[in-house]
């Protein structure tokens, strides 16, 4: 079966190409890519006329006129909840939500039950994803056994089994010596250490951003410094060790400054943020809205501006979702008891397109941060439309408007603070391994 995408505006930052053209997919692989009308200044590619009428009989033609054709998106920060918390999400439903959101590769965090701190768990996730998954799942292993921050997990063995990065996620490694060892040891396997930066002694019991709002709501605050202290510690440890550090979900102005300075000094660091950190302020929690309860917490306008600036100048390399699905019963609780997290896979791309509309990023920069940049950090051969690579492709419509309806989420987690929002720009078709994914 062949697929030919015609008339679409192709954009692939990995090859620095863009313009109207066509892509031929055969056996799940990108066979041909032609830019017929390149955008001024961009490279033209493979100018070979392939519109050979006679072999079109077994070719499905997709007319992408007026749409964009880009590499399938990569989300390097997802919680799939399986094994252990299938009532929140499963590998099947999470990957379906990913496809709906335009993602063809997602990385799942290790905070499952059991924790993905052993190759046997990694093997389970990969096997289950191969059997039931709608897109590629690349596991992230725990840095320490049981995410306890005490003893290194078998990073090398887990890497061989398929883990692409290591993180203790929401249980940050508080012991600086263990973190140092992790950054050192992981160098042998060339894998990044992803740090959820939070000094949990400073944030203790905190629920929302610390400030006037936390005070007037009577909710314990988390100061920006709880994140920044750990960002700075980890940057220093990355400098000391030369290890590969990736900072997860940057939420504060101070963190962006620290990372910018560190990059200027040549420290081996990359960083991500999530759509909610540039789309929402702390005001989203007013009325004790547990769907806006997330860690790190939503911050202020000033932080949002700084994050946009950091996205623009490349300080922040990646947009990830931190997709954290929870059951409605858990969110329908006392604010302090409700778990942290936002179900993000199905709104992330549209929210990120706002950055292009606002002039913060060019479309190329945005697609870069959601395709080739995470691919480079994870050292995986994805996020590209290069001839010969797996045909993971997203076709999206920049102008399509829709109402977000949490009840219609494919993810089991309906916990979104964006319910009822009108968003513009949406995936219209996601192709994974050369197959148009139907969500049934």
């Amino acid at each position, binding site marked *: 079966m062949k697929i030919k995408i015609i008339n679409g505006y192709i954009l692939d930052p990995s090859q620095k190409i863009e313009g109207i053209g066509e892509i031929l997919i055969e056996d799940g692989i990108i066979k041909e890519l032609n830019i017929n009308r390149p955008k001024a200044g961009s490279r033209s590619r493979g100018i070979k006329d392939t519109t050979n009428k006679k072999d079109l009989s077994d070719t499905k033609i997709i007319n992408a006129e007026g749409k964009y054709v880009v590499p399938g998106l990569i989300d390097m920060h997802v919680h799939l909840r399986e094994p252990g918390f299938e009532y929140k999400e499963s590998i099947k439903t999470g990957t379906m939500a990913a496809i709906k959101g335009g993602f063809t590769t997602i990385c799942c965090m290790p905070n499952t039950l059991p924790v993905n701190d052993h190759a046997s768990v990694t093997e389970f996730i990969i096997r289950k994803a191969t059997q039931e998954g709608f897109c590629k799942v690349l596991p992230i292993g725990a840095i320490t056994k049981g995410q306890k921050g005490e003893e290194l997990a078998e990073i090398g063995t887990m890497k061989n089994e398929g883990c692409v990065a290591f993180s203790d996620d929401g249980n940050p490694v508080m012991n600086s010596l263990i973190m140092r060892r992790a950054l050192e040891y992981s160098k042998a396997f060339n894998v990044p250490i992803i740090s959820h930066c939070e000094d949990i002694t400073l944030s203790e019991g905190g629920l929302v951003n610390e*400030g*006037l709002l936390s*005070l*007037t*709501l*009577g*909710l*314990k605050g988390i100061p920006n410094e709880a994140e920044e202290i750990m960002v700075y510690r980890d940057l220093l440890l990355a400098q000391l060790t030369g290890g590969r550090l990736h900072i997860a979900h940057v939420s504060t102005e101070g963190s962006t400054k620290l990372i910018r300075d560190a990059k200027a000094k040549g420290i081996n660091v990359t960083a991500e943020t999530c759509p909610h950190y540039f789309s929402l302020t702390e005001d989203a929690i007013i*009325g*004790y809205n547990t769907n806006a309860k997330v860690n790190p917490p939503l911050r202020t306008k000033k932080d949002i501006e700084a994050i946009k600036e950091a996205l623009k100048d490349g300080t922040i390399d990646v947009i990830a979702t931190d997709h954290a699905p929870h059951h409605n*019963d858990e969110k*329908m*609780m*006392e*604010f*302090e*008891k409700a778990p942290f997290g936002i179900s993000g896979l199905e709104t992330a791309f549209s929210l990120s397109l706002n950055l292009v509309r606002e002039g913060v990023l060019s479309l190329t920069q945005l697609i870069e941060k959601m395709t080739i940049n995470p691919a480079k950090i994870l050292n995986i051969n994805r996020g590209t439309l290069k001839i010969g690579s797996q045909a993971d492709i997203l076709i999206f419509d920049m102008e399509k408007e829709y109402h977000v309806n949490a009840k219609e989420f494919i993810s089991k987690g309906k916990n979104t603070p964006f319910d009822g929002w009108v968003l513009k720009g949406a995936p219209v078709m996601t192709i994974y391994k050369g197959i148009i994914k139907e969500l049934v």
Partner: protein
Amino acid sequence: MLTSKDLLGIKELTSEEINFILDTASGFKDILGRDIKKVPTLRGKTTVNLFFEPSTRTRTSFELAAKRLSTDVINFSVTTSSVVKGESLIDTAMTVQALGADFIIIRHSASGVPHLLAKKLKASIINAGDGINEHPTQALLDAFTIKEKKQEIKGLEVAIVGDIVHSRVAKSNIYCLTKLGAKVRLVGPPTLIPKEFKDLGVDIHHNMEEGLKGVDVLMMLRIQMERQGKGFFPSTDEYSKNWGLTPDRLAIAKNDVIVMHPGPMNRGIEISSEIADGPKSVILDQVTNGIAVRMAVMYLLAGVKR
């Protein structure tokens, strides 16, 4: 007229609404002075006291207020309810509603619980203290007491002393008194008064003597023993030496100062017994006025158009 079916906090009220409640409470206070203290106003209505935290005075005060208005009262306390069996808050609340409650008086250790119930339930929700957020009827009875003693609240110098950050009483009083035109200052150690309070239009003093100068009304807050050793202050002894109310310190305030305390008191820690039992104390008036104010709140909420 009140516009909301619920009383969730003072934050949500206008100064007109506050004054309206206080005026209505005056009428009920007259009734409480009569020989027959009960009125048939809300006969046939049901009040449920849903208390997830231990409380004697607030629960009793609400119970009495509800009974004086002739509603039927059920006390639903956490130790005897199915909450200890792991029932969720929403399920408990829905059960109480299904029993036919018209008023649900809720106290909970988590901020925002009354707001959650108010969204989910048709009954009138009255916040009897939620976490470190608000305790609106306490502020209303305090304002009522101040008005009774000082006639006018506008222009008064009010000092609130103690553990401000963890005090829902302090928060509600700050909103209430500033809305009514008083000048409010907060006194206590910096660990218990975050600087953001300034944005609420109050002054902050860390020195007790300075904080008491020229004060018309002095509100002492209960110091929670469990705060010591958590870094808020080293010991109750040191706290008491620096911020405890003694006769010497009271002399710094205005001559006709009144001393208030929401109770229960730690005698000898935040307040000396001589003052608590002395002529300037209005602590027991607060308790009595609490019933009248709570009657007014229930009466007015019953009249809110749905």
